């Protein structure tokens, strides 16, 4: 499946653009985005080229980072009343995931932990929904189109919503033939579309409208 390399390199491109356009949003809470895109691009490149086998633990670790990162990233944008819920959701995720590994429902080192992924992505989607509702109330369309926050939300919404059912598969090595290809293609398209949205957002957004 050679097309997967395109998915990896588009993530690298997004990371580079997030660094190049940093001046546009360094005054906002989105300033830590290059860190996220950098880590994702690094892991994808590393696992694609050098660490192809037994890398499941890295992705199991990644979901912990992603949930905490998104809760931190969107924390100021969800509105004061929801901020405590965001903290609670992050805590619930960590506790539940910790218990799943502790009680041996999943093997952290050798098994893709679908429970943890589904719960994590579900929490991220709730937070993104809340941010979208909040910016729907506050902004006008003119300002909104030039706001990086909107494009970031759209990108992650499409990626996580599409990949939620896919990440419920715990054993990817069992996937054979057409299913393997079909599921990989779906994941590939969700990565491409979401990253195209991020790239568009980085290029199109304007400093004064990104808050």
């Amino acid at each position, binding site marked *: 499946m050679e097309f997967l390399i395109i998915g990896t390199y588009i993530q690298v491109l997004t990371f580079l653009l997030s660094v190049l356009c940093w001046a546009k949003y360094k005054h906002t809470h989105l300033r830590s985005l290059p860190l996220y895109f950098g880590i994702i691009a690094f892991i994808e490149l590393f696992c694609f080229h050098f660490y192809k086998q037994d890398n499941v633990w890295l992705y199991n670790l990644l979901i912990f980072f992603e949930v905490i990162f998104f809760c931190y990233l969107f924390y100021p944008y969800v509105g004061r009343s929801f901020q405590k819920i965001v903290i609670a959701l992050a805590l619930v995720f960590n506790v539940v995931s910790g218990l799943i590994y502790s009680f041996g429902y999943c093997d952290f080192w050798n098994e893709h932990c679908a429970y943890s992924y589904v719960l994590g992505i579900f929490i991220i989607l709730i937070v993104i929904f809340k941010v979208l509702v909040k910016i*729907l109330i506050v902004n*006008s*369309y003119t300002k909104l189109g030039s706001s990086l926050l909107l494009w970031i939300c759209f990108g992650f*919404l*499409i990626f996580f919503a*599409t990949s*939620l059912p896919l990440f419920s598969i715990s054993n990817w090595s069992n996937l054979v033939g057409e299913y393997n290809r079909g*599921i990989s293609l*779906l994941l590939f*398209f969700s990565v491409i579309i979401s990253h195209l949205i991020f790239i568009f957002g980085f290029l199109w957004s304007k400093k004064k409208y990104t808050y």
Partner: protein
Amino acid sequence: MEQKEIYLLIISASITFFVLSVSLAALFILMQRRRDIYQKEINKVRVEMVEQTLKNISWEIHDNIGQILSTMNLYGYKIHSEVPEKFQPPVEELQELIQTAISEVRGLSKSLNTDYIKNVGLIKSVELELDRFKRLSFMETEFEVMGQPFTIPNDSEVFLLRILQEFFSNTMKYAQAKKIDVKFIFEEKKLEVYVKDDGIGFDGSNIQGTGLLNMKNRARLIGAFLKLESELGKGTNLEIIYKRKVTENDE
């Protein structure tokens, strides 16, 4: 359920979620656009109300204060012919003052009256406005029109004039300017308006007044681009770019 069916379910759920999230994003944009149109309508109504109020004030000034001053003027003539010669110079002075007041009141009434602006056009209205400043010794003015003027719809003319009046008013109130330059550049498809004063300026990064908001709202309503730039000690610049619209005259 067989493994095959589970995978099919996962794929179809994934596709459904993808379609749902894209639809949600599209719906979001659509809702925002609708809200913007609604907001634009509200702004338009608000501006129309302000215009109507200004028109009423203009009529009041013209019909009420104007009439009183005219009557005073007539009495002035009567007194002038009846008083002894030694009292005539102050009466003449009084008559001159009344004449000045009448012409000022008329000027003000015209500048507030939308119908008058629509009748004489934007260029003439700006000229009258600047003449008034010169006459009252507020500041020196310079007005330049370049290119071939094209017809601008009446509403847009009024809005453009109101934006300029807001700028002039701020210049008079705060800028301590000695001179104001206004330049209209008519091009084939747009009108560029540049206004510059030599006043004390202000911190351009911190503009929050309702005046600027009104200017921006008016510009947005006629689809014009507006930029206001200022720096302390370096005066203030206003730039408006108005895209030409096809009018009945053009057709």
